[in-house]
């Protein structure tokens, strides 16, 4: 229903931010994963947001969606630790390129964005409720 379209736009953003939060959590969880299925250290991942195009011309867009989760290609830090099971011939271990401070900042950003969209949803709901009060009194 047209009445609820703004609420659906906010809901799509909530879904996208939750996925972003999941990716950030996964980055933090794997901050020390030196071995993945490919044999290399874990690579930090990022989400790519993209707007959902409007269904009709002159209408507002349909919200946001995550189109891709891409790996950060930057190399990870190399630490000399010969006793590590994943150390190479020189005794160096490549750790994931996850920077905890960066992830924390991203996490706060995701949480605040979620909050903002939740408030937008509440406001849209309030507008519908106000419209329903027109007939009263």
């Amino acid at each position, binding site marked *: *229903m047209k*009445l*609820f379209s703004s*609420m659906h736009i906010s*809901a799509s953003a909530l879904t996208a931010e*939750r996925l972003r939060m999941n990716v950030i959590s996964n980055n933090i969880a794997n901050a020390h994963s030196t071995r993945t299925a490919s044999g290399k250290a874990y690579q930090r991942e990022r989400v790519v947001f993209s707007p959902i195009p409007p269904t009709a011309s002159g209408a507002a867009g349909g919200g946001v969606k995550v189109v891709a989760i891409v790996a950060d290609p930057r190399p990870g830090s190399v630490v000399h630790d010969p006793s590590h099971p994943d150390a190479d011939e020189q005794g160096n271990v490549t750790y994931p390129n996850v920077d905890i401070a960066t992830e924390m900042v991203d996490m706060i950003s995701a949480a605040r964005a979620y909050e903002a969209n939740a408030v937008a949803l509440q406001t849209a*709901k309030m507008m519908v409720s106000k419209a*329903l009060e027109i*007939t009263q009194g």
Partner: protein
Amino acid sequence: MGLDPLTAVRAFPLQPLRERTVTGTAKANQGESGFGGLVARAVEQLDALQKQADLAAVQVARGENTELHEALLTMEEAGLALQLAIQVRNKLVEAYQEIMRMQV
């Protein structure tokens, strides 16, 4: 411009409400025109929204793979749709009572 007080009324002649039998739901599905069909369709849509909200609540309770805010949004939608239906009904009853109070 001369104003004829009855222009508006003549433009939309009043039509009797179509009679609706108890088996009206089946009829409404076939696209019954008129006021009865309109109401029946609206009630069906309302019912569908309520069922959606029910399903969402059950899915969340079962811990199925659903987004919590999606479920809450569905419930909110159903609630607002019900509010809208109640307002429309209040307006209808009001109009009916207004007409019944009319001195003939």
